[in-house]
């Protein structure tokens, strides 16, 4: 068998094993369900508030937008954080010590993270269909949009997560930055409130990042078409969504391998041992 193919298969199985572990480890499963539950609970509060200028439920709109935000959280933060943590604990070094191990490791992470995103979306929509009014989940075109937005969204965010994860020296130092990054971005990306109410320059900054476009893409897939009227230009802007997310994906896929190689090159038994000693002292 060809080594690259063997590594690809090993990577796929690694992703599947890790996904299964998440679903069978009580704390991990609880964390996943808690996130979904908390999301639904918060949106239920705003179920009867209307999106300004319409009589459509703000809760439904926000629920869908947050699914888009969730892709970024999983793609960037989960991926980045795992990479920081697993560099610290020596998982990455083990991958480096076996032939094509790094490729298999990364593919595994992509698979397990994507699987978690797909699960989150599925469970949220399943429960949301009963609790919220106005979700347009009966259209085949909508599912198609959901599929390409999800895939492109993961491609745009996972490499970015890997790059950011390579930059932080330790998991502890990474935490506050993730929060700042996501808090700031979701505030200017129309996740909780339409972006049209923001000053123009903030809107432009928001439009540079994938969070806004993932939210918009999700809304276009799962809300009635008439809701496009509250968006910028009264349009779902599919072409722009495709363009911006693709640009992030291309940039990330070009940058990530080099950054990851550089990070992996610096790993050795003594660097992991030094971190272990540091972690045990503090």
């Amino acid at each position, binding site marked *: 068998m060809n080594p690259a193919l063997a590594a690809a298969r090993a990577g796929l199985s690694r992703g599947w094993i890790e996904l299964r*572990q998440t679903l069978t480890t009580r704390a991990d499963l609880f964390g996943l369900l808690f996130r979904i539950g908390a999301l639904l609970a918060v949106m239920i509060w705003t179920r009867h508030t209307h999106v300004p200028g319409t009589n459509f439920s703000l809760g439904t709109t926000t629920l869908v937008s947050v699914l888009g935000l969730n892709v970024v959280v999983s793609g960037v933060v989960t991926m980045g954080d795992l990479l920081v943590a697993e560099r610290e604990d020596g998982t990455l070094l083990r991958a480096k010590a076996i032939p094509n191990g790094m490729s298999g490791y990364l593919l595994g992470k992509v698979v397990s993270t994507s699987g978690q995103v797909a699960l989150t979306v599925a469970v949220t929509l399943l429960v949301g269909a009963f609790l919220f009014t106005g979700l347009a989940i009966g259209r085949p075109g909508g599912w198609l949009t959901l599929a390409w937005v999800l895939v492109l969204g993961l491609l745009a965010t996972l490499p970015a997560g890997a790059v950011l994860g390579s930059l932080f020296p330790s998991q502890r130092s990474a935490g506050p930055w993730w929060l700042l990054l996501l808090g700031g971005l979701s505030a200017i990306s129309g996740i909780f409130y339409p972006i049209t109410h923001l000053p123009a320059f903030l809107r432009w900054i928001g439009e540079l990042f994938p969070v806004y476009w993932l939210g918009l893409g999700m809304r276009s897939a799962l809300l009635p078409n008439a809701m496009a009227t509250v968006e910028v230009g009264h349009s779902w802007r599919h072409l722009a969504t495709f363009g911006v997310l693709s640009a992030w994906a291309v940039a990330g896929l070009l940058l990530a391998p080099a950054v990851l190689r550089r990070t992996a090159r610096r790993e*050795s038994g003594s660097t992991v041992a030094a971190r272990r000693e540091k972690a045990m002292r503090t």
Partner: protein
Amino acid sequence: MEDVLDVRGLRMRYGGTDVLSDVSFAARRGEVLALLGPNGAGKTTTIEILEGFRMRSAGEVRVLGADPARAGEAWRARTGVVLQSWRDHAKWQVRELLAHLGRYYAPYSTADVTRPWDADDLLETVGLAPQARKRVRDLSGGQRRRLDVAIGIVGRPELLFLDEPTAGFDPEARRDFHDLVRRLAGREEAAILLTTHDLDEAERLADRILILSGGTIIADGSAGELARAMPGRSEVRWSRDGQRFAHAADDATAFVRELFRQYGESVGDLEVRRASLEDTYLALVRQAEQGSPRTLTAVTA
């Protein structure tokens, strides 16, 4: 046959100081080499350069016929590195992890070597068969180290690196581990390079001992050869007329001959103890630190 390891004039500089100034040695197939030396002598640096995990400053290094700084994945598949686990792969089951990591080696099987090592067979070999379905985080410290060894050899390496493999082992675990290493070198014909602080371990395991001090190899040979080549004194003990005697002799044989000539049958409880590896080691390192580098090469390849 080509040497598995061939190191010539290896140098490593950090900032302005040489951690390794001139390290040269070689190893053949199936040979077990122990790298000894005081803390900070550069044992770990040396081993990490040979593993391809660290760039060297200068020198000629061939590991399995390739330069580890540039060698590819096919080369990687022929080496094994035993890493110290900490909390990685905590949720994985023991057998699951071993079988998974083994998959990467499958394309690198040759007519002589079937890769990877079958997971169940390997678990049996390292004595982890009863723990096969346990999660890694539920293993004891000793079991975890055995898993580390199993991961290091799952690809049936031609060359295995062990950096202080038995640190923190209890005596029984240490004995089991020594048996395993001897079996690997014997049956699998793997060359093994290990670093250790335990002289007893080095003496028991290694075919050849290298002592690293002051950035260079100051001794290279088997434990017996090092002791013989070192002008250490042997200790002679005996008893006569119920009285015990001890004497440090430069030439123990001549001393004992003279002893018998003078006192004949009244000599009893004779014991001759050659300088131990520990004595040799301490003497050599002391000499090197006092700045009278005297390279002792008992075996030249």
